[in-house]
């Protein structure tokens, strides 16, 4: 009796739409998503939020926008992607077509921006401040945080490791780091690395995990035995030490990090998918699909994968969090990227000098904590939404 009541109230909606709704009815998921949203906006608009280049200025009545001049190809690609996702989300298209459009935009944007956009090689952040004091500009609009992440304020004298709002002539909301750069600006730009490493590493791991786990689960037998040994081998690899070794041999590269974290964390996903596929294979709708003579592709990807992907989504949101943590750990150990900002690397500076620099610990540490927490909240809510026994009572 309760079943019919529930199904009538949910009529007309697809199963996945219903699950998404169910997930984001929970407060945890909403808070988590809000924080991730803030991060995404910060990452995409970083060159406009935190930069030494003025957004707009006027010299003798003529308008200039130095920030546009200094946009890098990566900045442009991210902007294009962000807006195409926004537009596509509003268009009534099938998911498959949306992905196709997105992929073409990505390729086109990459090709075009790398051929057409060439920002000036040399950037002199001091020039704007000098010009302002010299009174060359009629008026000027600065970014909300008017310092670039690599603007070490050489013209301002020794600015290293100042607590927040310590100086009367400059406003550093989160203080400065040891080289004199603005912490807020570096944090905004570091959100790109945090998001990127989380998504790309987890994406790689999910892709490998789904393919290998799916083959293991569907074909079982010999494929299962070989796949399982492969899973065990990769599970035995200690990710952090492998990362350290690679950094030692091949230098510091974000991409190597992403690939290695991805390559070592797929076994978990493979196990999940295998278990799901073993269960689904016996389900009657899969048997019915085989009896209808549907091709293997359709059975695997249309009938089995969408029904077995739920636990993997839960695992993925936890996986993103752990990838971010891995990068932060590496940077904290001083083995992350050299000059580019990263939260873990900033944490490292909190204890480097003889004094404890609380702002170097609190703000990047808080960001890491909030991000990992947000992903875990989303993962938790997803799991509850997928669990048929829990979601009845909430």
């Amino acid at each position, binding site marked *: *009796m*309760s079943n019919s*009541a529930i199904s009538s109230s949910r009529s007309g909606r697809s199963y996945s739409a219903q699950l998404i709704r169910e997930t984001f009815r929970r407060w945890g998921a909403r808070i988590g998503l809000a924080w991730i949203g803030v991060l995404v906006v910060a990452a995409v608009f970083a060159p406009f939020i935190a930069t030494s280049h003025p957004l707009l200025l006027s010299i003798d009545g003529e308008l200039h926008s130095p920030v546009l001049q200094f946009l890098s190809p990566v900045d442009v690609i991210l902007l294009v992607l962000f807006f195409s996702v926004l537009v596509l989300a509003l268009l009534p298209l099938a998911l498959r077509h949306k992905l196709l459009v997105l992929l073409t935009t990505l390729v086109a944007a990459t090709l075009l921006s790398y051929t057409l956009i060439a920002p000036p090689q040399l950037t002199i952040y001091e020039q704007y401040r000098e010009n302002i004091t010299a009174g060359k500009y009629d008026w000027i609009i600065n970014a909300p945080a008017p310092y670039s992440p690599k603007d070490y304020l050489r013209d301002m004298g020794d600015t290293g490791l100042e607590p927040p709002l310590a100086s009367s002539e400059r406003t550093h909301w989160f203080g400065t780091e040891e080289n004199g750069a603005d912490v807020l600006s570096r944090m905004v730009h570091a959100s790109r690395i945090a998001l990127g490493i989380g998504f790309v590493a987890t994406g790689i791991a999910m892709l490998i995990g789904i393919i290998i786990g799916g083959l293991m689960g569907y074909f079982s037998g010999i494929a299962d035995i070989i796949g399982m040994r492969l899973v065990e081998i990769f599970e035995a690899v200690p990710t952090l030490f492998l990362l350290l070794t690679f950094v030692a041999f091949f230098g510091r590269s974000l991409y190597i990090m992403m690939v290695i974290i991805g390559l070592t964390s797929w076994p978990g996903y493979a196990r999940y998918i295998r278990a799901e596929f073993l269960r689904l294979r016996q389900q009657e*709708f899969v048997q019915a699909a085989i*009896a*209808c*003579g549907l091709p293997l592709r359709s059975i695997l990807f249309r*009938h089995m994968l969408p029904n077995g992907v739920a636990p993997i989504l839960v695992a993925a949101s936890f996986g993103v969090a752990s990838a971010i943590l891995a990068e932060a750990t590496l940077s904290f150990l001083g083995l992350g990227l050299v000059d580019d900002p990263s939260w873990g690397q900033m944490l490292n500076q909190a204890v480097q000098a003889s004094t404890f620099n609380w702002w170097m610990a609190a703000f990047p540490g808080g960001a890491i904590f909030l991000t990992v927490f947000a992903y875990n909240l989303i993962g938790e809510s997803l799991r509850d939404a997928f669990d048929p026994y829990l979601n009845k009572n909430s």
Partner: protein
Amino acid sequence: MLLQVNNLKTWLRSGGKQVKALDGVSFSINKGETFCLVGESGSGKSVTALSVIQLLPQDISSHPAGEILFDYRHDGGRIEQVDMLTLPEKRRREIRGARIAMIFQEPMTSLNPVFTVGDQIIEALQLHNPEMSYEQARQRTVEVLEQVQIKDAAQRINEYPHRLSGGQRQRVMIAMAMACEPDLLIADEPTTALDVTVQAEILLLMKRLQQRRGTSILFITHDFGVVSQMADRLAVMRKGKIVEEGPLRQVLSAPRHAYTRQLLNALPENLPRPTAPPPVSSDEAPLIDIRKLQVYFPIKKGVLRRTVDYVRAVDGIDMQIPEGQILALVGESGCGKTTLGHAILRLIEPTGGRIRFSGNTISGLARAELRPFRQQMQIIFQDPVSSLNLRLTIARTLTEPMAVHGIGANSAERLELARQTLAQVQLDPDFVWRYPHEFSGGQRQRIGIARALVLNPRFIVCDEVTSALDVSVQAEILQLLLELRRERNLTLLFITHNIGVVEYVSDEMAVMYGGRIVERGPTGDVCSQPRHEYTQRLLAAVPRVQL
């Protein structure tokens, strides 16, 4: 009057909504009688039982009105009338198990797998009789196990539940319930998960124990056959209310309420027989021709997973089904009937033997070569919940196979065909845009039939298609299948364990036992004059509604 339930209301909270599971139920049970509650799924039978013994989860249930008066016999023999609803939890626990005991439907999960059978009964005994020593309790346990006719009870007491069959487990459950000599035994569909032959033994056992002890039984079932075997009085439930109550004979032979009549008329044995089946010409080659079909499952042991033996699920079966015939395949669970059905469609690979479909040998064909035959051979499954892909609309589910087999010129035409097929299984054609979770069990089963029909098959395996359905829905589905057979000259292999359904639907029947077919013949002949010893046992065990 042992138990008196007056105007009981039970409301359940589900997803923020109140559901009136019981809406003013009143009945009473006398000492030593069996009272049956009958109804379809969702009618509130089980909720009634759980309310009486107060086992509903308290956070989602409430009783806005009513009383459950039970004559609580104290150890000294003093009788006190208590209201289970207002009794404190501590005193309810004294009554539960000792004075009111319960047997559940699923024998596989109602015993704790980490304790031996004996320990579970001994624990219950000592809990309610604190003065009883371990030795005495053990002695008593052996006695009750003997009473439920478990052989070598003194040895079996040390066994873990997984070593026992379903029937034996249900006996242990009964032994556990009877150990403390309760005054009221609540049996919630105790034989539904069991084979008919086992069911007959368990029912007989319960009757004997009742006669010896004078226990009252509240028996919950959906099966009128079982009711007519067990009940002294019965009540028919519908949507949380009792619509009719009375002595067995009176209700079955002269039902007063329209719903009771409707339920009785929906029984397969009471359904109007369809017009005589079209004569099957015997000289024509059969549509399905099976020779020495074997399906063996290897049993692997040890580190190297060497095959030590085989489970012979299908052990060399010869079978022919002429075109247009409905052949019923009957047998108890585990006899291999489902495996045989799946092997014919090559959903399970046969280990040996030959399958011919309309003159073509299809055993041994590769995947791609088999595809044209897939169109002509379809299957309908037992479980309407798991047989549809929840992620796809009905339109997708129905048109995808058509596209693969090139039926219909374009997607618009295929959609039109899907709508026509839905209309044929008596569903609204506009249902194509819905998702499976929006439908009831019976509707889903119709969609399952529609999926089989869209490919215009000649042969359909119906694997227990009605056993998950209520009796009135079962009647509709059976009539629909017979009608479709007549329209399309379908050949059906009807796998079932329900003899009533077999008699109603099939032209011929085959009885399977231990992987082999032990008897085959026209349905009427086999049912009236069974030759094989197993068939005789099976037919004798079927609970019939005696009017």
